[in-house]
């Protein structure tokens, strides 16, 4: 099968084209660097099926970040039959810069001018024929989003893939032509593939090339010496200038621009407000708060908080009452996210009752009924009931991502971030961490600096992901239900912010101790704003939903069954009360470890459930909640007057009553789960994205940070004056680090 690679600048629509070609639904977003790995699919739009490879976006074939290296290596080593170079027609000059480099390789190239519909709307025109004549390769106008011109493109690519093409360079007219010719011939003699390409890169002094061809580099050095004064010895500038010079020369003929009015476009207007000098950062915080408020607020309009208005509805019909309570409660009008949560809880309760009466009517053995109700269903429904709410949060995040605001956040926050030792660019993978740590960790490939990459990977789990969100929602909801005056959604927001603050703080500490160095440069394209595409939002949501369902019915259900078994059987395989179970013995054995954090030995005979929940969270963070749900009924059975809440926050409230855990300790428990080792999947990904041998430090970092922070949180919340002791310790630590750094930077000892 013929293989076609899609190459082009970041955010030029490669993935949209990939989806249009292959009919798949890969993730697209409006910021540079969404795709960080190659991705293969099959295109059946032409006469013959062809393999299509979507590559990460690149500005140039001189790699700057790891994900650009992936694209370059693929193009050079895997020898695709044809390269489709996608060029954003609204930004042609910079896009053609890459084209001039692709043309130097010995591979057929087809240029796809994308977004020509946007160009037309602006009143501009691109002349594909003139461009094709200037570049010497076919040029096809397309709109990947509207799927226009795709068939022509497939045909052109198919035709081109049948042919051979030798590289051509726009530098043929430049003063370097001789040098490049000489090296090309030398390399071709050695049988090197793409000799022209390598020759040009050598002349540019490209790092990987210089290492690979030291002999030819000598020719370059000799040439440089010979005519050092000719162009001030500045080859890099010379070659880049020559490329852009060639582009401007031929570009003006190919694209006609209508007279641009000096009026501000809608994008400019939005930008003026969103990145305002004074209001930029407050607006960002407000947007973030709105995000969480819409998802977690019981009291959306603050009716209860301000006017003490509540809605206690009693119609006498219990089913109707609980249905109305989905939307209103004594706490006020619920936010959309909470309504979704309540609705799902409503459905889960009905389904749970149905299942329970089903197995009971069938006359199954007691233990089997327990297994179904308190094992499988409790565990799964614990996760299921949170799905709509988390999906809603995810939808809001996707809107931010699609609109182009994410890149602006990096722009706004760069200065503040730099103080702590990160560039604003690192904030994009971190924000992705609100969804899932796994893609977030992979996205750190867009960061150029290795230290920055390691640090970002380490703190990404501190950005509470969709699997940890239920822990926050359940715990904060339960606390709010138990203690009047505590607002659940403010508490959730505070915990989210706390995670972010810990990320920034630990980065600052690492910068002062183990990860010293300069902050990485910040050079980034800012995409124009556009309205989020409904289709792509739906695709995001659908994927997330699939992901959740898959997880609920594999990892979570398996863990729930195991937990149920361990908590209902004793060491000699007899069914027993939970206090004699295997799980109790294991939990009680390690319970004391958590004493400093408030959920250890002081909790008495049921306190071990929190330790167990935290440990099961290492497999998948949803397990923390499903463990609560599985264990709550078993513990409830031992307590008189037990309120068996099947869904929602009921089980957590029940566990609070059974163990007598304080809200301070419950917060510490949540903090511990937020900051500790993430789930297996995330930990494995971080391991893959960071240099070899460093991962044990990362593990140690997670354990230490979570343990110490949770302890500090528990102490300060319980006895406020301990804050002074902790501050003193922190000051001592800071002083020690500062002194040590000074001693090191002055080796003479003066």
């Amino acid at each position, binding site marked *: 099968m013929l293989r076609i690679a899609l190459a082009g600048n970041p955010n030029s629509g490669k993935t949209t084209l990939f989806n249009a070609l292959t009919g*798949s*639904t*890969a*993730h697209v977003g409006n910021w540079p660097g*969404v*795709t*960080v*790995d*190659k*991705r*293969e699919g099959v295109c059946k739009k032409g006469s013959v099926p062809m393999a299509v490879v979507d590559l990460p976006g690149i500005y140039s074939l001189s790699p700057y970040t790891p994900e650009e290296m*992936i694209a370059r290596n693929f193009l050079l080593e895997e020898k695709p039959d044809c390269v489709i170079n996608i060029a954003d027609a609204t930004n042609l000059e910079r896009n053609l810069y890459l084209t001039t480099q692709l043309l130097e390789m010995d591979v057929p190239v087809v240029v796809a001018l994308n977004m020509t519909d946007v160009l037309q709307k602006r009143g501009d025109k691109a002349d594909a024929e003139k461009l094709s004549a200037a570049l010497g390769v076919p040029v096809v106008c397309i709109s990947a989003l509207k799927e226009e011109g795709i068939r022509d493109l497939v045909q052109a690519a198919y035709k081109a893939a049948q042919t051979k093409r030798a590289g051509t360079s726009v530098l043929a007219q430049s003063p370097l032509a001789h040098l490049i010719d000489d090296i090309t011939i030398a390399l071709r003699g050695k049988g090197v593939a793409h000799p022209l390409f390598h020759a040009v890169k050598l002349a540019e002094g490209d790092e990987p090339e210089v290492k690979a061809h030291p002999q030819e580099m000598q020719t370059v050095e000799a040439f440089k010496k010979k005519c050092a004064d000719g162009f001030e010895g500045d080859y890099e500038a010379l070659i880049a200038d020559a490329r852009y010079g060639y582009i401007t020369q031929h570009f003006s003929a190919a694209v006609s621009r209508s007279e641009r009015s000096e009026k501000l476009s809608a994008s400019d207007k939005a930008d003026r407000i969103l990145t305002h000098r004074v209001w930029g950062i407050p607006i960002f915080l407000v947007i973030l708060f709105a995000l969480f408020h819409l998802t977690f607020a019981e009291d959306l309009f603050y009716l209860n908080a301000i006017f003490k208005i509540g809605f206690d509805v009693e119609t006498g019909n219990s089913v109707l009452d609980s249905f109305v309570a989905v939307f209103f409660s004594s706490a006020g009008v619920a936010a959309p996210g909470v309504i979704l949560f309540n609705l799902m809880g409503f459905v889960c309760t009905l389904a749970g009752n149905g299942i329970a009466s089903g*197995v009971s009517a*069938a*006359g*199954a*053995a*007691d*233990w*089997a009924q327990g*297994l*179904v109700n308190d*094992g*499988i269903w409790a565990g799964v429904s614990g996760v299921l009931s949170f799905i709509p709410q988390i999906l809603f949060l995810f939808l809001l995040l996707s809107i931010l991502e699609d609109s182009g605001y994410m890149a602006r956040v990096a722009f706004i926050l760069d200065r503040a971030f730099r103080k702590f030792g990160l560039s604003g660019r690192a904030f994009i993978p971190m924000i*992705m961490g609100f*969804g*899932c740590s*796994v*893609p977030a960790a*992979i*996205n750190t490939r867009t960061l150029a600096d290795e230290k920055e990459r390691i640090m970002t990977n380490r703190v990404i789990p501190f950005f509470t992901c969709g699997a940890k969100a239920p822990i926050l929602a359940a715990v904060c909801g339960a606390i709010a239900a138990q203690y009047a005056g505590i607002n659940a959604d403010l508490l959730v927001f505070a915990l989210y912010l706390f995670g972010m603050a810990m990320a920034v703080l630990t980065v600052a500490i690492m910068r002062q101790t183990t990860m010293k160095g300069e902050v990485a440069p910040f050079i980034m394209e800012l995409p124009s704003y556009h309205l989020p595409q409904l289709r792509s939002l739906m*695709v*995001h949501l659908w*994927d*997330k939903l*699939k*992901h959740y369902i*898959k*997880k609920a*019915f*594999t*990892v979570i*259900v*398996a*863990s729930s*069954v*195991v937990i149920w078994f361990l908590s209902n059987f004793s060491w000699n395989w007899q069914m027993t009360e939970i206090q004699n179970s295997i799980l109790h013995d294991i939990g009680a054995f390690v319970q004391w470890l958590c004493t400093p954090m408030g959920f250890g030995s002081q909790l008495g005979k049921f306190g071990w459930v929190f330790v167990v929940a935290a440990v099961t969270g290492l497999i998948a963070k949803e397990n923390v909640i499903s463990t609560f749900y599985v264990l709550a009924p078993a513990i409830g059975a031992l307590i008189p007057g037990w309120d068996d809440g099947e869904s929602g926050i009921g089980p957590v409230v029940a566990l609070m009553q059974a163990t007598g855990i304080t809200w301070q300790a419950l917060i510490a428990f949540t903090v511990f789960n937020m900051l500790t080792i993430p*789930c*297996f*999947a*995330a930990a*494995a*990904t971080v391991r*893959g994205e960071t240099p070899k041998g460093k991962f044990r430090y990362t593990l140690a970092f997670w354990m230490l940070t979570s343990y110490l922070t949770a302890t500090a949180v528990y102490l300060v919340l319980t006895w406020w004056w301990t804050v002074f002791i902790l501050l003193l310790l922190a000051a001592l630590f800071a002083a020690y680090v500062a002194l040590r750094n000074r001693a090191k930077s002055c080796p003479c000892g003066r």
Partner: protein
Amino acid sequence: MQFLLLSATGTIVTVVIAVLAVGLVAFGIGYQIWCKKKGKSSCGCDCSSCGGCCHSHKKEKK
């Protein structure tokens, strides 16, 4: 034995539940191993929302 006290349907349902539970656990564990072998992310997604994490990125690393 508790089994002997159950009706015929009860016995069948009980056995089915037991098999189902064991099967689910086996499947859950097997799925994780399968993901690992395939180089997929065991976050359980072959979704597009993970920016390509499921496209055997492990092999890419040298």
